[in-house]
């Protein structure tokens, strides 16, 4: 099933996309069309947002780094999230803003000191993030610093969370990003340095993960700087297709 977070009839709620993807079933048993809702990023309020740097070997090499020996994790707030078909505003004082297509694992049950072998039992589902970086603002303090990776509306997320059972092996999924129809990223989750199960095992070895927490698992090769009005689509096999447009920060 595909779970969407939305506003309908003046209320935030979760819904389930019907099998033909033409409508959304709400918790009260009614069904509504896409035109009757406003889609929101499928995130649980308060959830911890983990993100990974350098988690694909080819992207590490592209940026001049050796792949890390332990996960390079950073944390994000919720200010960056923007729903499917939203707008990500490019800063006026920066041009090196590049989309990063990422598989996102959503935690489904509390995880503390879980083994890699048991880790995927703790995943509720998967979604897609386009986790922009703006390279002009890189500084070597707690890098990647939040001014690069946690800017308002520069993390499109969605369009939905797909149940883990419907996705299967999270390490066998193609990822692509297109900008105005041209492919700028093309990779596979099989090339992750630390697969989803190992990330959950590592994080839960020293902290408790809770339902709704999200892990943005990193991005493959392909650094392409976007411009205002670019149409960007991030796609992850078996999960979906996340679209947004590049705007300009007022």
């Amino acid at each position: 099933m595909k779970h969407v977070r939305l506003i309908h009839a003046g209320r935030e709620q979760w819904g389930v996309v019907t099998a033909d993807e033409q409508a959304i079933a709400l918790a009260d048993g009614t069904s509504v069309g896409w035109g009757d809702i406003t889609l929101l990023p499928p995130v649980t309020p308060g959830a911890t947002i983990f993100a990974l740097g350098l988690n694909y070997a080819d992207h590490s090499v592209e940026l001049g780094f050796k792949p890390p020996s332990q996960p390079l994790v950073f944390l994000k707030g919720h200010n960056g999230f923007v729903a499917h078909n939203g707008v990500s505003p490019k800063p006026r004082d920066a041009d090196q803003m590049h989309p990063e297509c990422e598989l996102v694992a959503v935690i489904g049950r509390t995880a503390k000191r879980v083994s890699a072998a048991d880790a995927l039992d703790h995943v509720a589902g998967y979604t897609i993030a386009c986790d922009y970086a703006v390279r002009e603002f890189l500084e070597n303090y707690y890098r990647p610093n939040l001014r690069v990776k946690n800017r308002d509306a520069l993390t499109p997320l969605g369009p939905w969370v797909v149940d883990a059972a419907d996705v299967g092996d999270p390490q066998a999924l193609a990822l692509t990003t297109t900008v105005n129809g041209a492919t700028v990223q093309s990779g596979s989750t099989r090339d992750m340095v630390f697969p989803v199960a190992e990330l959950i095992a590592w994080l839960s070895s020293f902290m408790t993960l809770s339902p709704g927490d999200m892990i943005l698992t990193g991005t493959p090769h392909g650094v392409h700087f976007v411009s205002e009005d670019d149409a960007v689509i991030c796609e992850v096999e078996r999960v979906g297709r996340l679209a947004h447009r590049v705007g300009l920060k007022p």
Partner: protein
Amino acid sequence: MISGTAYGVALNDREQLAGLGEALNHAPYGKPPVAPILYVKPRNCFAAAGSAVALPDDIAEVAVGATIAIERTAAGPHLARLAIDLFAPHASFYRPAIAERCRDGFLPVGPATAVPDALSTIEIVTAINGAERHRWSFARLVRSPDTLARDIADFMTLAPGDILLCGIAGDAPVARAGDRIEITATGFAPLSVTLVAEQAR
């Protein structure tokens, strides 16, 4: 308790920054920081006043970062809370200090109250087992709370429910399992927690 995201600011203590001196001009840093260096204390860290915080067996000593958090509200003025940023001491600020800063219970926060008038020069006192061990003033901040708010707004928006820890003293004292920590500042109820050894696995 905290409904939003908790952000902290590293290297916002002028004395700490001065102590790092020339090192900031060399690898891996290259140059002194330009923008505020933010980090996130995730929700597993949140702990209420009076909590017993479990110290994991791989952290013998924690730094006790006594500070004040400013909380955004949907309407009306900001609020303030005493807060203790607990973390494993670490010398390098190059990579995000997740394993050092994000342990369960590592952010005790007190109740929300009015922002004190003298916030920019407020003194925060840390006592461990009843004896004063540290005292510092927000006059030491590189960026005052107002300046921080302005410089952060340049690249991200703090939402209602989010809190911002205004800075941590570079010479924050350390504590161990069994210690009782109490921090005080004018205008706030004291905030105390105890550290206990984590149960054997």
